[in-house]
């Protein structure tokens, strides 16, 4: 039984002279990995930030679990997020950062070791994050996202900075989470990788939705890369 877990309704966001997201409508189903694809500057991060209540939409709305993020009770127990910005303090250790998050929402500290284990970061738990590599930061972001054991995950380019081994690990990680019935919305540029990971695809270009469907429907026998290039180039031509 799948249901709509995330819904964008005519979402628009204007920054001074740029229309970053334009009348964007789409749904994301539960129990599936949905790839959110689009060229640089297409509006992916902006749409996800609107969804998480970090950015105020100019028009329309974005709902998670049927309502706005800011209306959720105990949001990190329901939604986990990895964004393209640092969400943790560089002067503190990984564990200290996690403790701050955990204590703000009454999460047991035993969960901290679990999530560090989960993202393979246990050995760096007591290191200051300012010395972390890009991949380690990305893993810590994932650990923070998993802290509340959420059923919905919103990930903005989580593969960024991961080595090949890390990318394989991430793929299996996301598939396992989706297998448990969780909902995953993940943006990425790595199309070949996405082809192996996602069930559904949303493609956005210049703020506008250009395609939505299962990976089969979108690809129609082509590779995801071919389909992506055709869809985004055709629209912008």
């Amino acid at each position: 039984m799948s249901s709509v877990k995330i819904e964008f309704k005519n979402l628009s966001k204007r920054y001074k002279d740029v229309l970053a997201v334009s009348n964007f409508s789409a749904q994301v189903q539960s129990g599936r990995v949905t790839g959110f694809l689009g060229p640089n500057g297409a509006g992916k991060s902006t749409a996800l930030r609107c969804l998480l209540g970090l950015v105020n939409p100019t028009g329309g709305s974005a709902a998670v679990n049927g309502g706005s993020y800011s209306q959720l009770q105990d949001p990190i127990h329901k939604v986990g997020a990895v964004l393209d910005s640092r969400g943790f303090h560089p002067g503190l250790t990984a564990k200290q950062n996690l403790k701050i998050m955990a204590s703000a929402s009454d999460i047991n500290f035993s969960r901290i070791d679990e999530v560090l284990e989960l993202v393979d970061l246990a050995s760096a738990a007591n290191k200051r994050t300012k010395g972390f590599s890009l991949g380690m930061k990305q893993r810590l972001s994932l650990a923070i996202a998993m802290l509340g054991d959420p059923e919905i995950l919103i990930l903005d380019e989580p593969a960024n900075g991961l080595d090949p081994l890390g990318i394989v690990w991430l793929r299996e990680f996301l598939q396992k989470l989706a297998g448990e019935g969780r909902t995953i919305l993940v943006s990425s540029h790595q199309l070949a990788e996405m082809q192996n990971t996602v069930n559904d695809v949303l493609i956005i270009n210049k703020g506008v939705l250009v395609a939505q469907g299962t990976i089969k429907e979108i690809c129609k026998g082509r590779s995801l890369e071919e389909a992506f290039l055709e869809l985004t180039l055709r629209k912008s031509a």
Partner: protein
Amino acid sequence: MSALLKSELRKLIYLRANWLLLLWSGLFAALGTVAPILVLNSDNGPGRGVFSGTETQEGINAVFANAAGGYLFALILGILIMTNEYRHGTAVGTFLVTPKRSTVLVAKLIAASLAGLVIQLFSFLFAITSGFIALTFFEPHAPVPAELLFKVLRASAISGLVLGIVGVGLGALVKNQIAAVTGAVIWTLIVEGLVVAFVESIGKYLPAGAITGLVDVDFGENDFNFSIENYLTPGPATLVLLGYAALFSLIAMRTTLRRDLD
């Protein structure tokens, strides 16, 4: 709210810069007690003839009143508590856990009042202890009455509580850490004095004037050339400062706190 407050206190404890600030507040307040003891008692120092030495009650009063002098550090810590979130990008994580931004602001106001209190209690104790040690080199001196220490302690505690709160409000409004800290320090130490030079009547209602009213202990008479009567008494001064904190916080809640986060 209690979980959020615990999380805020954890941030305070984990950051080494905060402990450094605590140490500085103590050193600064101690300078305020020790330096005048040395100056007032030096035979050919500038103090002689103008001010009373520590063998008089006025001298002792003036020296120990300075133990409340660490209040600017409480203000700075309050500013840091809020602006650290923007400076280091942790605001995103904080607001993902608690999307109601005004709730976060309230938790920070409470945390900052406690932190300001700790700063002022520590710097008070440090300054008093240093003062007593310095006095042992200049016997005999006038007694240090318990009532004096109590008045200064009260001024320290209230100023710490209140200025921590003012700092968070200011930080929420200004957001840029360096601008907020330098702005607050320059305003308090320089700008406000210039403003008051032109419009004397409003001086006691401005932030630094209210701080002076709050931390300056009234000993009845004194032989310093400024009169405590130009300032508010501690009660109204506290209210004026809380008024600034409320004003900053309310404006921030309707403006800066609502803005997009990147």
